[in-house]
């Protein structure tokens, strides 16, 4: 088992005929993901990669193929429209890769999703992957993953690949790796994903990779303290970042005491997480925690 996606996920790629969309859709398919449809307005009726039907609208794609997960490669200015279109069509999981979505567009999208059955992952995220079910819905390099029992949840892209490759190098496979995104407003946060890992019998331990900005790690710490029943290993990036400056991610900025890495590490340590002191030691810390736990 895995969380959010599995071998039965029927994946739709919005923006499938674009440069990024076609490149990554092909990589997902190579990995084994069940890409059942593409959507590009005006390109309906064609085939992607000679096999995947392309539709003019998400509504049509869902109606014809039963797609229930959508991977969006739509440029940021058009992402709100694409996310709302997917939600209106009843897609269960919407994965928005685009960086640079205006924050008020995300605010409107989150408001639209209230009371609907769709979950948004991102924006500005690498997507998610479940190596055990060969289901990759995102832009991460598939080859670094291996199937196993460690769950990974992260605000970052490449730092997650780094963490995963450390795990894989030590023989620690992953159940699901979820990139929640580096924007200040995102659809799925740490607590949402932790709750799913908590209920997943195939996940033994979770690696949480946070960063400066906001207080989502503190909320996660609160949840871990109160309700989480598995070991947690955490790393917070940006301990050396200066206050008031945006560090790449729109959400990575220290605007108050809570937003600093130190405060986040303290909260996680208080909640019982094994706080990793150096990004070089993520894998080693997990290995240690796994051996301690078993």
């Amino acid at each position: 088992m895995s969380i959010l996606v599995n071998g039965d996920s029927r994946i739709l790629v919005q923006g499938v005929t674009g440069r990024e969309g076609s490149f990554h859709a092909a990589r997902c398919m190579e990995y084994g993901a069940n890409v059942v449809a593409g959507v590009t307005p005006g390109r309906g009726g064609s085939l992607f990669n000679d096999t995947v039907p392309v539709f003019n609208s998400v509504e049509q794609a869902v109606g014809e193929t039963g797609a229930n997960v959508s991977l969006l490669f739509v440029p940021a200015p058009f992402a709100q429209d694409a996310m709302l279109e997917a939600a209106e069509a009843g897609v269960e999981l919407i994965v928005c890769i685009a960086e640079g979505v205006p924050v008020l567009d995300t605010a409107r999208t989150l408001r639209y999703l209230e009371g609907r059955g769709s979950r948004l992952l991102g924006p500005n995220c690498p997507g998610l992957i479940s190596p055990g079910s060969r289901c990759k819905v995102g832009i991460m390099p598939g080859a670094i993953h291996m199937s196993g029992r460690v769950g990974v949840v992260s605000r970052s892209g490449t730092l997650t690949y780094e963490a995963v490759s450390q795990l894989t190098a030590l023989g620690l496979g992953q159940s699901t790796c979820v990139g929640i995104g580096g924007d200040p407003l995102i659809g799925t946060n740490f607590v949402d994903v932790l709750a799913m890992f908590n209920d997943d019998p195939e996940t033994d331990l979770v690696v949480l990779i946070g960063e400066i900005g906001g207080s989502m790690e503190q909320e996660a710490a609160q949840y871990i303290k109160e309700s989480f029943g598995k070991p947690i290993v955490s790393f917070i990036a940006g301990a050396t970042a200066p206050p008031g400056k945006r560090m790449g991610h729109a959400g990575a900025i220290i605007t108050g005491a809570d937003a600093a890495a130190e405060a986040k590490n303290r909260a996680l340590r208080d909640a019982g997480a094994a706080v990793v002191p150096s990004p070089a030691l993520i894998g080693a810390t997990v290995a240690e925690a796994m051996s301690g736990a078993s």
Partner: protein
Amino acid sequence: MPPGRVAATPAEAEVICRDLGGRAVVKAQVYAGGRGKAGGVKLVDSPQEAREFAASLLGGRLVTVQTGPEGAPVRRLLVEEPADVSGEMYLAVTVDRASGGPMFIASASGGVEIEEVAATRPESIINEGVDVAVGFQPFQARRVGRGLGLEGKQLGAAARIMTSIYTLFMEKDLTLVEINPLVVSGDGGLVAVDAKIDLEDDALFRHPELAAMGDPEQESPLEVEASKAGISYVKLGGSVGCLVNGAGLAMATMDLVQGAGRLPANFLDVGGSADEGKVARAVNIMLADPSVKSILVNIFGGILRSDIVARGILAAYGEKGAGVPLMVRMQGTNVEEGREILAGSGLDVAFASTLLEVEEKLKALPR
């Protein structure tokens, strides 16, 4: 805003102060908060004093808690009629991460930075979230106004101000509109003594009128150059230049550098889809920084191919990299090819495969 005009020279400041009746508040116009505390704002009691204070500011740089150590250039001053202050309030609208939408933040303890109020008098802070489905409502404005202790005419005035700044916030896709301080004037009205807005870069495509307003002189030349190249770059105080792909990995790389007893010279995220030219520009930006004594490249290739990174580095180093030691850690696509390109180039490159190796080898770099 109280009456006033902009001065670009000390003589203009003197004239405006005289026009205002001989008393004025003179304020440095820079793109940063905290200027009052930094000595960029002064109440002057004569035109002569206005001239002198203006002369001391114009042409110099103002360092506030938000400008960084290099400060921001002062090219213009605002000379305003002094408000008859009888209580300073803070009022702002921003985007709240927890509620996922716009939020008003207000406090009767204005006049200082809101972070300070949050630390010292958190109970004085009022938060009022806005539902974007219907927008900011008058009943919410009254609630905030009452929380600030306002009544009657002032409550109405505050509500009108809040409604205006919310409209401005939404129409212009801002991430912050801040009035600090908001004061009750002698005649009982409300005056926004100082205000600040933050634009959202990601939404400028819908606001060409705002995109044109930027003043590149307010950023450092290296930041302007990086921004033009689509590179995410922040200058820091150390000596190890860092070239990384991905914001999280870039921050983690900075942390690694510090963990090894060195300090990073910069945050630099070259992005996931960089080409040779972009990598070269990133290297050039670091080489142009005199405080950079060595360069660490940390690339975890997904889309970004190592051979392209290697070629970009070579292109820039070839020109002026002599004497700046280079450490390269690349993982992912075409990593062998990338290594060969660098190894065969004659450059003195230290290679690392893992972050642990990077950490070890960093300790050998010059401070």
